[in-house]
């Protein structure tokens, strides 16, 4: 089958000779992929920043597809069902899944205990093949996947597998109270969605900060928020204090993660030398910009190694830090309703549709932010819709 094939940092290709996936467990299904996105966090893999990303891996944790084969223990799905597949692989039985922490499953990743299994996200996240392929194996398929409602556009469905739940949970973890000022660092798809969802919790002001003008313009329009380029404001922390009557924001959301720009020491140590789990610049700004007693919500992805953060300021300011991978299964019923009600319109984020055969161009386009790219969707040749 055709699948994306990682060959090293900044090198990926569409490989026609990848073996078809097989049922390896009674609770597996095989899905024929209809849509697969490139996520901002795929770029961390693409840039070689995630340890244990092996050559020959297929990325892709945001996908939808049609069930073509089911394991012997599958009860909730049948061949022909069209499903959205949460990016987290969750057993539904462990103590953490039973607490609805589906992003923290303890039965899906033998290689690391800190993170549950994730499709196509290196052996640090379980070594699963991802959905940037014609077919993919989906474990625990009775637990995570949800049948796509007939009324739902496939482009909306594919964004419900990660972008919408992660953005929503960023705002949810922030504990936003009516009247709060929310600052979101990062105007990628997740940051834009976090800004959009902040309104749903009663924010009075939402400010998004980035360095890419076209993304800020998009965010301003899509999320109806204030948008600021940190290259034009001097010190972002001083700027935020200034526009919040010197006290700081009630809530800051880090939707950037390990490839943040804006601080050369962090960039050197985190991105080039890999001596910390990425560049923590956005997290620094979030901690230092939030009000005393405020909340910092982290959904930006960092590597597993140590990272430099101003933990003394966290203590002295009495900051609450909340973070997690999105619990997609927990949030899907509510978010499907929000899409049906027109409260959230995910597919507007999609700017580029690229055939899977041109996956190298698609990654470069997204990574280098060419052609005003916000979100790229890969279409496999077998996708009929």
């Amino acid at each position, binding site marked *: 089958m055709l699948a994306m094939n990682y*060959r090293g940092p900044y*090198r*990926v*290709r569409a490989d026609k000779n990848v073996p078809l996936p097989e049922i*390896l*467990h*009674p*609770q*597996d299904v095989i899905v024929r992929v209809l849509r697969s996105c490139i996520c901002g966090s795929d770029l961390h893999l693409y840039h*070689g920043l995630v*340890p*244990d*990303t*092996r*050559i*020959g*891996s297929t990325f892709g944790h945001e996908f939808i597809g049609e069930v073509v084969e089911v394991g012997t*223990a599958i009860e909730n799905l049948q061949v022909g069902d069209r499903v959205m597949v949460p990016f987290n*692989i969750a*057993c539904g*039985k462990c*103590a*953490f899944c*039973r*607490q609805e*922490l589906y992003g923290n499953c*303890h*039965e*899906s*990743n*033998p*290689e*690391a*205990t*800190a993170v549950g299994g994730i499709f196509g996200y290196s*052996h640090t996240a*379980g*070594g*699963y*093949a991802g959905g940037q392929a014609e077919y993919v194996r989906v474990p*625990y398929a009775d637990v995570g996947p949800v049948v796509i409602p007939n009324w739902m556009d496939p482009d909306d469905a594919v964004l419900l597998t990660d972008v919408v739940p992660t953005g929503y949970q960023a705002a*949810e973890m922030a504990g936003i109270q009516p009247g709060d000022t929310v600052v979101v660092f990062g105007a990628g798809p997740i940051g834009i969605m976090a800004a959009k969802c902040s309104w749903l919790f009663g924010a009075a002001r939402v400010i998004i900060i980035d360095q890419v003008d076209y993304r800020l313009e998009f965010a301003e329009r899509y999320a109806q928020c204030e948008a600021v380029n940190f290259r034009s404001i001097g010190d972002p922390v001083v700027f935020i204090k200034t526009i919040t009557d010197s006290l700081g924001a009630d809530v800051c959301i880090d939707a950037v993660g390990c490839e943040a720009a804006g601080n050369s020491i962090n960039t050197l140590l985190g991105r080039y030398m*890999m001596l910390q789990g990425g560049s923590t610049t956005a997290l620094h700004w979030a901690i230092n910009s939030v009000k005393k007693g405020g909340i910092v919500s982290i959904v930006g992805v960092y*590597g*597993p*190694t*140590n990272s430099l953060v101003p933990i003394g300021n966290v203590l002295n300011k009495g900051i*609450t830090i*909340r973070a*997690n991978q999105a619990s997609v299964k927990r949030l899907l019923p509510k978010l499907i309703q929000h899409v049906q009600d027109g409260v959230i319109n995910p597919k507007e984020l999609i700017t580029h549709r690229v055939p899977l055969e*041109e996956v*190298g*161009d*698609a990654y*470069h*386009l997204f*990574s*280098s932010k*060419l*052609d005003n790219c916000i979100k790229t969707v890969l279409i496999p040749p077998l996708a009929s819709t």
Partner: protein
Amino acid sequence: MMTDQTTPEDFINERQGQYSHIKGWGMDFDPKNDPTFPIKKRNNEEHQGYAWQRPPLQEETVEILKSVERPNLTAVYGTDNPPKGLSGAIRRMAFNYSESSYGRWLPLVLADRINMLEGVAQDIAKGHLPNIAKELGLGAEWKYNKKSFISKSVVVGLVIGLVAYQFCSKKKK
């Protein structure tokens, strides 16, 4: 391959605690004081330890490197790209360290880079010459960012030309 022989009973938390003699035990408990709400549906099952009824176990058909922080493989896992070659040897060594150690992660980064070279060698051995320009997505660069493409090409061309010139002039001497 070895099959996991552990059972839930091996991990039941028997430290149930003796606190009935503690004066004031639990008197200030406030269920609303829960910073995990609404993310975690609290049921305190984790206090019972790693003792849940596990899903059926996937058959072990390839080598899987397991974190030393857990006693067994998870019930499912990915089987693509098992460790092999020099990079595989380094990965095996790295997995002797816990997830909190640089000894775990920095060797994995080294293994990834070596694996990249192994990948090139494998391609050539299979008679497949990698199309580096296509893999780098230079088509998109040409389509959407011609100016940068041309300037980068000129710089790369100059560097290659200089190196070639130096090499040739040294050879003549």
